[in-house]
């Protein structure tokens, strides 16, 4: 005798994280699943909140640069650049040309390094363990060494200063950078060859976690996440800062806004960054000052406020800086791109399978220190 009866099921809620290799840092997702299907999700952040904004209010303008490294620990130069430009705009400072070129070279190399980190971590999320991670880190290590040689530190560079740079680059900077760039181009080609047509990537990432252009704009997406959804918007082109108006580069965009497009956009962005660095190396003045002349030991920007934004590897990084004419920032709000991307995580993941949740989270390319600040 066969009894026909519908099997009763219940939705189960459980935590992924805060200590979990797939969360790329200290981050918790409360997943509610119906079998393998995610029906609800709540991102929980704040585990790494150190109060960088409050601390910056209690440091002088130069000391506050240090917190930018500690906020954005995968693209430190980019974060420093945003903060330094904010203070420079308030003070009406002109940065010497040579310093601008060195800044752009370093920030673009940093962008490549950050995207390489993404490639490595993302491939591990996908299930391609080992090989690609090692490839990506081999490339990244060369840049790390270059950065360390210049700034004296592997992670917390604090090399940019308001009005220029802390000190000049080593004598062999041009040759070294050219060599690093040449090797990196080969490395990017290697990653491309290994991953782009990879069966695992194609099967697991196409049509997953898609966001339309309207949704992406509504949620405040920026950077590669926004461009993957088909919006051709790059702050380096839309609101050129530093010397980006002199440089040629393309803005890659995706079609569907899914995980695969996010990967493709980042891969192409690395090539474009390499192009920018090459142009800078050719145009850069061989010598000249690296700090704006006549800077006082204690910086006191005139009263005023502005919202400075730059294109970081993860998207629009912003500093809302309020000055009251004192030697310390009155208020510094850091707008971090990953923070905005994570707020839309529920919309991206719900309706997908649990295994895809990890990939979608990986495709956001979060830096939790930057989310929590």
């Amino acid at each position, binding site marked *: 005798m066969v009894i026909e009866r519908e099997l009763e099921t219940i939705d189960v809620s459980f935590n992924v994280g805060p200590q979990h290799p797939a969360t790329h840092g200290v981050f918790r997702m409360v997943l509610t699943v119906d079998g393998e299907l995610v029906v609800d999700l709540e991102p929980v952040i*704040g585990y790494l909140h150190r109060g960088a904004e409050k601390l910056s209010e209690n440091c002088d303008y130069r000391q506050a640069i240090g917190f930018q490294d500690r906020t954005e620990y995968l693209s430190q130069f980019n974060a420093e650049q945003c903060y330094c430009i904010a203070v420079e705009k308030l003070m009406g400072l002109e940065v010497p040309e040579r310093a601008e070129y060195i800044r752009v070279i370093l920030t673009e190399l940093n962008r490549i390094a950050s995207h390489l980190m993404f490639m490595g971590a993302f491939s591990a999320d996908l299930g391609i363990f080992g090989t690609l991670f090692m490839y990506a880190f081999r490339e990244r290590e060369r840049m790390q060494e270059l950065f360390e040689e210049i700034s004296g530190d592997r992670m917390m560079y604090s090399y940019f200063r308001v009005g220029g740079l802390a000190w000049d680059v080593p004598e062999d900077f041009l040759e070294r950078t050219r060599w690093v760039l040449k090797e990196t181009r080969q490395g990017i080609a290697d990653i491309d060859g290994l991953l782009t047509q990879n069966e695992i990537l194609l099967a697991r990432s196409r049509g997953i976690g898609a966001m339309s252009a309207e949704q992406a704009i509504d949620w405040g997406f920026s950077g590669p996440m926004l461009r993957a959804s088909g919006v051709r918007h790059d702050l380096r082109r839309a609101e050129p800062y530093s010397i980006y108006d002199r440089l040629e580069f393309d803005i890659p965009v995706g079609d569907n806004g899914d995980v695969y497009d996010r990967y493709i956009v980042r891969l192409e962005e690395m090539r474009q960054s390499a192009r920018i660095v090459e142009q800078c190396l050719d145009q850069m003045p061989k010598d000249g000052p690296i700090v704006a002349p006549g800077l006082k030991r204690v910086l006191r920007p005139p009263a005023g406020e502005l919202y400075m934004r730059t294109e970081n590897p993860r998207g629009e990084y912003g500093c809302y800086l309020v000055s009251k004419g004192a030697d310390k920032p009155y208020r510094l709000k850091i707008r971090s791109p990953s923070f905005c991307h*994570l707020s839309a995580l529920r919309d991206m993941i719900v309706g997908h399978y649990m295994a895809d949740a990890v990939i979608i989270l990986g495709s956001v390319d979060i830096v939790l220190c930057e989310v929590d600040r």
Partner: protein
Amino acid sequence: MSAAEERREPGAKGAPIVPPPPGSIADKFKEVLPDVEFEASQGVLDVVLIVLRQDIPRVMRAAKDDPRLAFDYLRCLSGIDQMEQGLEVAYNLYSFKHAHNVTIKTVLPADDPQVPTVTTVWNGALWHEREAHEMFGIVFQGHPDLRPLLLEEELGYYPLLKSHPLAEIEESQEDFLREEAPVAAASVAGAPPAPVDEKAAKIALAQKKAEVMKKAREEARAKGLSPEDEKAFVQEALKALEEGK
């Protein structure tokens, strides 16, 4: 009350107010919303519009929906503690259609920091408003979920307010010190000497010296001494101060 009355005193801290150039985004806002009061100024990068808080829902709705403005992107939302002048909320908007920017600000009294939410206009405001709520105590009316985001629950204070300064390192070791204190008190016989605030004394001395130096320098200049003589004169004045002490 007009926007000008309710907002903070503009020249209080010396920031000059520059009117925006004609044809700027401020004019477009006035054209779209003729009966709303705007106080416009040209900021360092963007045009800044200050509006009354009760106008926020109308202004934001129009900013997004009106095709002349089309601000479809909320870049950033920040709380700012202006102390006596109340709390400020700054909205940085961007339009992909027209590629223009604006900063909209509103001022809230410190004893009643409430402002209507903009999450109904942009989803992206959800977490920004939650953050501003837990950091400044600003209540966003109509926000679906104002639980703490970055901080722990029931913290009891709003850390980014200026009335909540950073703790000294000693303060954070309060429990440790409390245990030590009775032991130290017991070991000292009789009444303990009044504590000497070395830091304050040092600062006072430095200030006094600076005053003497300034005075001596002015005197020397009035006499028309050469730079070398002026130096010597100042040194003498300092010596006299130290001996007199």
